[in-house]
């Protein structure tokens, strides 16, 4: 009976949200140049109530404050954009700070994403 109930709970949870991506950030991040100090250390996404939700963790590897800019490109299954360009959003991280960001898709058509990141201390290769 207990097993049956926990199975029902699991089914309910999976019904509400489905994990879409949890893995290395490289494939989902497009950096404008190479960031010296700001690094995306964790990235995951899941579909909750039909909307894609991204959880992002960024770390400042420097002892000083550093500023960056980010935005998301929302894509469909085939990689085509489903939303216009978002506004770039400024980001301030204090020395050695790690922050978490949550981003919600603007439309249920979004099934995939790319995160664009630009930092003031970037140097281009």
């Amino acid at each position, binding site marked *: 009976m207990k097993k049956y109930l926990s199975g029902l709970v699991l089914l309910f949870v999976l019904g509400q949200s489905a994990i879409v991506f949890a893995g290395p950030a490289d494939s989902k991040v497009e950096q404008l140049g190479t960031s010296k100090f700001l690094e995306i250390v964790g990235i995951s996404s899941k579909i909750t*109530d039909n909307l894609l939700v991204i959880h992002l963790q960024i770390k400042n590897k420097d002892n000083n404050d550093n500023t960056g800019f980010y935005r998301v490109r929302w894509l469909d299954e085939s990689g085509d954009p489903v939303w216009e360009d978002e*506004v*770039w959003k400024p980001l301030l991280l204090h020395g050695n700070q790690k922050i978490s960001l949550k981003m919600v898709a603007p439309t249920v058509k979004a099934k995939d994403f790319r995160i664009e990141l630009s930092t003031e201390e970037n140097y281009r290769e």
Partner: protein
Amino acid sequence: MITISNRAKLLFLFTLAISYGCAATTPSVGDNVQYGNSKDVEQVTTEFGSTDLQMIAEAMARSLAQSTSGNKDKILVTIADVKNKTDEYIDTKSITDSIRVQLLKGGTMRFATDIADMESQTDELSRQNSSGLYKQGSTAKRGKMEGAQYRIEGNIASITKRTENIKDVYYKFTLMMTNIESGTIEWSDEKEIRKTAKH
């Protein structure tokens, strides 16, 4: 026979032709004004700016969409005023317009005519039904307008601190959605922005 001076003249004319040719391929007039990207972060002054408007609209629209995305049917809402409690001029209608555009494009909500547009809506209904100018059966009927189930309203406030060298501005934009029938607040969220300028 082409002499050296003639060659020089030809070279000059050739260079001139190429220069004009290159210029003609750019579909612009004059070079005193530069167009920028409307999505770039504006950091000109600490006053409320385009990036603030865009970030607020995006954050509020996404939060609202998420709050109702699990619903079976799209709810019908109307937008009331966003009060400006700051000491600067802010076109709050422009913020709510952007929120509505994003929610309509995202397909998560439906919007009823708001108070600001009600006069033109009723004028058009009256014109179609009372002027006698329109073919019968082709006019929009009276008494068919849908009443919104929810009302969205809010306010924007700010705190400004100044010293000789620093100006710090903190903005707080609060939005809430009220069930019109029951009067209960069903959703609320806020977006904070801090801007600091050093002189």
